[in-house]
């Protein structure tokens, strides 16, 4: 039942965008002008490609995020049954946590968290 409702909500979201686009397509004006299709930058024709190499800093943070996000995903099932596991559960998860925190400390010391 819940999975069916998930699909219903998904379709509702798609329908909102689709219907609004359809209405807008029917009632909005249309005109063509070669200048209008240019990138909205500074009024003069823009120079060079915009699909280019960008700062590597963003990439570094994305990698770090990946590490910690996977950690959160692994911790969720453990969090639910923590009351039953007790101290043994805490000690077991600490091994995992300490290794990941060492990773953060390493990245910090290496200067990966600095924005240069």
């Amino acid at each position, binding site marked *: 039942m819940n999975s069916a409702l998930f699909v219903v*909500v998904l379709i509702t979201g798609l329908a909102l965008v689709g219907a609004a686009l359809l209405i807008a397509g029917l009632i909005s004006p249309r005109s063509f002008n*070669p200048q209008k299709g240019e990138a909205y930058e500074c009024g003069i024709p823009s120079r060079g490609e*915009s699909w280019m190499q960008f700062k590597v*800093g963003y990439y570094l943070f994305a990698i770090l995020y990946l590490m910690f996000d996977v950690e959160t995903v692994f911790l969720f099932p453990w*969090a639910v049954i*923590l*009351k039953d596991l007790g101290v043994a559960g805490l000690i077991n998860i600490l091994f995992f946590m300490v290794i990941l925190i060492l990773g953060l400390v390493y990245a910090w010391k290496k200067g990966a968290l600095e924005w240069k």
Partner: protein
Amino acid sequence: MFDFSIVTHWIDNLLRSVMPGWGALLVEFVLIGVVLLLLYAVLALFYIYFERKVCAFFQCRLGPNRVGPYGIIQSVADMFKILIKELISLNHIDKFLFNLAPYLVIVASMLAFGCLPFGRGLQVIDFNIGVFFLIAVSSIGVLGILLAGWSSHNKFTLIGALRSGAQMVSYELSIGFSVLTMVVFAGTMSITGIVEAQANGWFIFTGHIPAIVAFLIYLVAGTAETNRGPFDLPEAESELTAGYHTEYSGIHFGFFYLAEYLNLFIVAGVASLLFLGGWMPLHIPGWESFNAIMDYIPSVIWFFGKAVLISFVIIWFKWTFPRLRIDQLLKLEWKYLLPLNLVNLFIMVLIVIFGLHF
């Protein structure tokens, strides 16, 4: 307290008495879709009006006050105006990704919206891993923003999208960890379970200091997650025109606008669900007559009241703090919030294991 499942069961029985089972189910699905759609649109419009009015009062202005009494129809008029504007077709864009981006942004916020418990028995999607599902779907939104910026073929949008990506991805961690702290405390991921567990006291009161710290971290991270307030770098108009949606026109832009305000509501709704008891009324153990009076207030009013209150605080941030730089923003997350969050989680785990809570 009024249970909305009475209404839904009554509609279900009524439909089943006049048509076969599958027909009733189909009609119910359509009804759910229409109600959700209307609620989504009305809430987004209300929030646009609310924010404009609030920031007007912060700046000693009146805000919108011409269209309708106190200007309440202003945002409806604005949305209609956006609807009749031209959708400009651009020359060098990646057409498929450009058109896909609004779908992703809207669907992500709609799915998260469907998970929220609006009142007793008034929740669309109720998985037993509810909170986890909520985090998962709400992080799809960042994909839409990245695609929007990348496909527009414009340097402003590209920088805006990358900033937004780095920021949302970083603060996603803080949201994840503060939600995890509360899941440790509640011992369940089901949204109904979490709300029911707060019947005798909201988690922010019963959860000692870690719950309060988690709440504060959640508020900061939620503000960053919705690209608002002091964290509105992706849309910093003095540097990047309008950020990732510079090239979008007409209703295409309207989708980003709607989703942004709905995300504000979702962040506030999740905060009220995890920390302030969702639709649960305020109960103080021992004060029987006070609790009985609080029970008379409908659950819907409790939920929306808390959500609007928290979103007021988030709007307040915007008019109080100056905008951060990108390095300060990432430093705040990775060097302060994340270690604080890990320590906070550890304290919460100790409290739960040794049963130190109320």
